[in-house]
């Protein structure tokens, strides 16, 4: 268990902070939004991030990775949350690459992962079908067809699904919705015949898509892992995603909180700084407490990934549920404490508020994770 960053990880975090605040401040997201950018992130900046090694950081050296561990990646992602930097880091590096690394065969790993590392290849995980995160309820069917597989069905809320070069599609080759049996993962080209991708304009201005599969045919080697046995791999992929997303949320919440505390020290009303009011001081202190507890949880969750611990599912649910709640608390309080200006588009606090709710629904809201945690603990 490591609950502090080592020297190298701290250095990495500082580098990320410098790069992001200089190149990708919240203003950059506003520009993407206002210019109606079709991708939802800047390709050029993504290339710069890849040059800094962020796409290769958790990959093994044999696939051109740095093998630096998730604790380091988490530090970067936390910083990216502070500036709400839009990039395919989560979709490609955390979700997509993990699916290939944990489930794929040698041929798939050696042909695809080096391209992820270099930034040539972007990925997206096509999972959701309903209105809430519910992986077990997956219904999309993949049937054996012509030596390969034929996919039919719809996917929603696919992060970076409209722009990714390849999709990792979660489908059923057997079993019914609600069962963990029969899950299979498939690699599908973004421009595959029969695949329709529609960008959805989300409240957080980031990229997400609705996908429809109409007789999309893939060859047998598109299958990642064992046929019908993908559930354990998918769980770990999702848990990595949940922890990393929680780290992004922590960064966002910290930034939002610090900006709010600064405002409490600046804003005059009734002839004094509003931060001198106990009604606001106690609420600020409570937010600080929640954030500190969240930091500890996240450190341990990243340790659980890096040490391949058996309690990763618990930690992932703990981290995601906590950050959902904390980010919601902090963004709501940030708006309220800023007063009237808090509900203006000019103030950047609104961007954090919007991102918070998208991130909450992504990979499981708090109720999902509390239920999961309770079941994992035997009650």
């Amino acid at each position, binding site marked *: 268990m490591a*609950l502090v960053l080592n020297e190298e990880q701290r250095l990495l975090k500082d580098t990320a902070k410098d790069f992001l605040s200089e190149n990708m401040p919240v203003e950059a997201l506003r520009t993407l939004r206002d210019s109606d950018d079709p991708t939802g992130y800047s390709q050029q900046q993504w290339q710069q991030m890849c040059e800094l090694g962020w796409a290769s950081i958790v990959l093994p050296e044999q696939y051109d990775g740095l093998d630096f561990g998730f604790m380091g990646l988490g530090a970067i992602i936390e910083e990216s949350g502070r500036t709400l930097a839009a990039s395919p880091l989560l979709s490609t590096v955390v979700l997509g690459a993990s699916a290939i690394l944990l489930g794929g065969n040698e041929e798939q790993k050696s042909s695809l992962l080096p391209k992820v590392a270099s930034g040539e290849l972007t990925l997206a995980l096509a999972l959701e079908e309903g209105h809430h995160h519910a992986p077990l309820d997956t219904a999309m069917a993949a049937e054996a067809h012509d030596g390969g597989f034929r996919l039919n069905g719809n996917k929603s809320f696919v992060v970076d699904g409209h722009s990714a070069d390849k999709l990792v599609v979660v489908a059923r080759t057997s079993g019914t919705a609600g069962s963990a049996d029969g899950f299979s993962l498939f690699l599908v080209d973004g421009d595959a015949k029969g695949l329709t991708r529609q960008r959805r304009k989300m409240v957080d201005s980031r990229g997400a898509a609705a996908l429809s599969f109409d007789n999309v045919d893939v060859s047998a080697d598109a299958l990642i892992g064992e046929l019908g046995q993908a559930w354990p791999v998918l769980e770990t992929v999702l848990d990595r995603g949940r922890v990393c997303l929680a780290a992004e949320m922590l960064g966002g919440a910290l930034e939002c909180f610090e900006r709010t505390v600064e405002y409490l020290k600046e804003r005059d009303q009734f002839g*004094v700084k509003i931060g001198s009011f106990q009604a606001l001081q*106690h609420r600020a202190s409570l937010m600080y407490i929640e954030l500190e*507890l969240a930091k500890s949880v996240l450190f341990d969750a990243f340790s659980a990934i890096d040490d391949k611990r058996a309690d990763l599912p618990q930690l992932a649910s*703990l981290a995601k549920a906590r950050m959902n709640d904390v980010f919601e608390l902090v963004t709501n309080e940030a708006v309220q404490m800023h007063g009237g200006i808090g509900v203006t588009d000019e103030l950047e606090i609104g961007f954090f508020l919007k991102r918070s709710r998208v991130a909450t629904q992504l990979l499981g809201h708090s109720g999902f994770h*509390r239920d999961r945690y309770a079941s994992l603990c035997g009650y």
Partner: protein
Amino acid sequence: MADLDQFRLEVRQWLEDNCPASQRLPITREEQVWAGKNKQFPSDDAKLWFERMRDKGWTVPEWPSELGGGGLDERQAKVLKEEMKALGCRTPLFDLGIWMLGPAVLEFGNDEQKQEHIPKIARGDVRWCQGYSEPGAGSDLASLQTRAEDMGDHFLVNGSKIWTTNADKADWIFCLVRTDPDAKKQEGISFLLIDMDDPGVTTTPIELISGESEFCQTFFDNVKVPKANLIGELNKGWSVAKALLKHERKLMSEIGGDTPGPSFGPVQAALEYVGTDENGKLKDAALRDQLVRHEMAYRAIGLTHFRTFEERMSGQADSNVPLIMKYVGTEEGKRKEELLLALLGHQALGWDGDGFNEDEKLTTRGWLFSKALSIAGGTSEVQLNIIAKRVLGLPQQ
């Protein structure tokens, strides 16, 4: 690290060899061994265990060995604590002197005072209690009025202290007293040690909502106290008190570790008193949610304890984080008691007599007692004030 691993093995072996089997069972309130002139041992095993730990200096593992302590560093002390926990070894000796006064004397006392008091605390010869709050000085502790008048060769003490925990059983009391009534609030206070046997000291227990009377009020009527009993400089008692409060808050944030309570935790109580459905889920969905929220919060708090320790060890100490622990520990501790009450239903509402087993009665009393946790040692509201001021730097009115 290798040294520490070796140390761990030695500790484990020593505990295996020296801790009697009966001293590895969960402890009840009656079985606690408290320090004092007339120590009571509930059993021969408890006496043996206490004596072995005392002789090793492990009643106070981190204190200097020449003063009766174990001479361990913080890492070693943590290993000892972990190994004791793993084996279920009971805390061999209970005393406020160990948790609070000792660290203050070691930090602020002169050599004579250390020689006089520290070994006695380590050996459990003297039971200490604390005299801070007064009827008119609670959260606003610095407004305390108990006077210690300089009479040349001694102080003359008059006034009263309240919430003096176990003062009716204590041999000595450490007090905050006003030595300069004209100075600004915090500046006229001194830290004084008083023998409870001195003429003029009287104590009355206070009955609490839990039916217990741990807390007392202690009165001082023209009590003569030798000047040698002043710890730290005259009128500088506030800084001693502040250092000591940190120990108290740390202690309270860790509460639950060794305090007697029901033999079950919330999860066990839920399974037993609520039961599960065919999917293994707790039958009552609302209680299940309440339970899991608490369990998740406890885990986060536990991890934060570990984090502060690791930060200290790696020299990245963020001195602000420990400030939150008193608040979160006691507030979540109260929620745990409310949860247990809800889980046990009618069975946690008995007061006495038949129809309720010991665990159930302990749950009821524990719930009532827990209400004091967020009041004693600085209320939760005061803790939030401190965070706002010291950590967040928010302006003061």
